[in-house]
């Protein structure tokens, strides 16, 4: 099978699943009558609608090629960094380092992905960014809360630019016998992360009892994590033929993606909680902000990238 045929089948399957979800959503909205139930179903339908939008964007990028995919993720980093900085307080002296983060580091990082310059891609932000960001802050001459301000900006850039940029970088990994099929790795990561999020939500709603982190994220339950994680591992194993992994390795990769994604969701919930907010924004109806959908990707993408790079590239 060619890459094109594989992708066509994959997108076809996703469309069928979403159509099924839409049908169930429409059926539920006619059947459910209780007030709390209606709110849940409404939220569910909004989420499904947003899913259609997301899969359409993803498919369009795939059709338009690598450059469009890199641009899509650059835009995702832009919106998530914007949401992160908007919700968390900044001071006047943070303006200069933030201008540098938005207008220099972000485009440069994605240019490095686009031009396949791995050596600099891997160190731009940890070495040069973390050298210049605090320097720019200190040059403003305002020592108030200096340490927390610098950490705040550095972590924001790490989360939203550096980590998310590892997702499109998957396309460039040179794996023997798997040349030119990197896009399928990106599909694998996205499918596992998002499916795990959805199934954790579903299992949590259906049988969630034991709260995992009652203070930070009251909706996360042990039952949701186990059910969602096992479903995502099953999906990962089922997708093994589009990856360079064996079925067992594909399930293991999916398991690690689930754990990293779960920890990402938890860490970013802790930030939201500390700011007294429920969502990162309002851009995606039913889901909140872009960062609400990308928190797990942000944690899982670099892990998946480096494990694949270490074990499968020469």
């Amino acid at each position, binding site marked *: 099978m060619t890459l094109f045929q594989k992708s066509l089948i994959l997108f076809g399957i996703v469309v069928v699943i979403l159509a099924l979800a839409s049908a169930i959503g429409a059926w539920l909205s006619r059947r459910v009558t209780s007030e709390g139930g209606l709110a849940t179903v409404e939220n569910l339908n909004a989420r499904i609608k947003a899913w259609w939008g997301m899969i359409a964007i993803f498919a369009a990028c795939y059709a338009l090629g690598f450059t469009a995919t890199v641009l899509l993720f650059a835009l995702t980093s832009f919106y998530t960094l914007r949401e992160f900085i908007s919700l968390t*307080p900044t001071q006047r002296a943070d*303006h200069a380092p933030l*201008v540098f983060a938005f207008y220099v580091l972000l485009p440069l990082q994605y240019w490095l992905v686009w031009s396949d310059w791995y050596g600099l891609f891997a160190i731009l932000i940890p070495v040069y960014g973390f050298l210049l960001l605090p320097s720019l802050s200190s040059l403003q001459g305002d020592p108030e*809360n200096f340490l927390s301000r610098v950490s705040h900006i550095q972590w924001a850039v790490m989360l939203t630019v550096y980590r998310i940029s590892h997702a499109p970088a998957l396309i460039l990994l040179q794996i023997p016998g798997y040349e030119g099929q990197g896009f399928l790795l990106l599909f694998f990561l996205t499918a596992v992360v998002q499916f795990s999020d959805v199934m954790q939500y579903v299992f949590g709603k259906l049988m969630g009892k034991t709260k995992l982190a009652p203070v930070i994220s009251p909706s996360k339950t042990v039952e949701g994590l186990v059910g969602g994680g096992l479903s995502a591992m099953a999906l990962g194993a089922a997708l093994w033929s589009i990856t360079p992994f064996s079925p067992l390795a594909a399930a293991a990769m999916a398991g690690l993606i689930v754990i990293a994604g779960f920890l990402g969701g938890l860490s970013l919930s802790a930030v939201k909680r500390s700011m007294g907010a429920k969502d990162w924004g*309002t851009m995606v109806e039913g889901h909140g902000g872009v960062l609400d959908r990308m928190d797990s990707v942000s944690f899982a993408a670099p892990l998946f990238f480096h494990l694949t790079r270490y074990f499968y590239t020469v």
Partner: protein
Amino acid sequence: MIDLVLIGLTRFLVGAHCRWTGSAPEERQRIYFANHASHLDTLLLWSALPKHLRAITHPAAAADYWGQGAVKRYIAQKGLNAVLVDRSGSSAPGTALEPLRQVLAEGHSLILFPEGTRSANRLPGPFKSGLYRLAKEFPDAELIPVYLDNPARAMPKGALLPLPIICSAHFGLALARVENEEKEAFLLRAQAAVSALAPPAPEALTS
């Protein structure tokens, strides 16, 4: 065309979300008055208004900023429908408001920043008397308080580039008209109406 580019760019960078909390986006004569903390304010409020309201609304823009240089003047007049106002104080008392009176006399709406200058604080400072005079001369215009949230973070005083930080415009309940109200009382009431729309202050970043 240029207005759509400006609005697109503003929304891309700072979101420019609008929240109608006390009034609705109705097509009637209004004086919108807002807090002023950034050069982004005019663009932000303008971009937050729906299209049918932009067509009949004119921001009052400081001639010493927006009138400086061909590019800014072009943006202000063609893109923002702005009325340039001289705030130097060199003209005879009352005449500075003349271009604003003309707009209101035609039945159109105005956007005013009654503080007159950008303040660095979250809540607006004392209002100048222009709003009082225009309100008195045009008793049928609705007085809508607007709180602009975050533009001072996106583009503080002295900054060259705006940062992408989500900003929003909160439109409040029309200010009630009180018969024979003193100027000071009116201005204080207007200022308080804008402050009341401000979302609670974010917790300070403490270690």
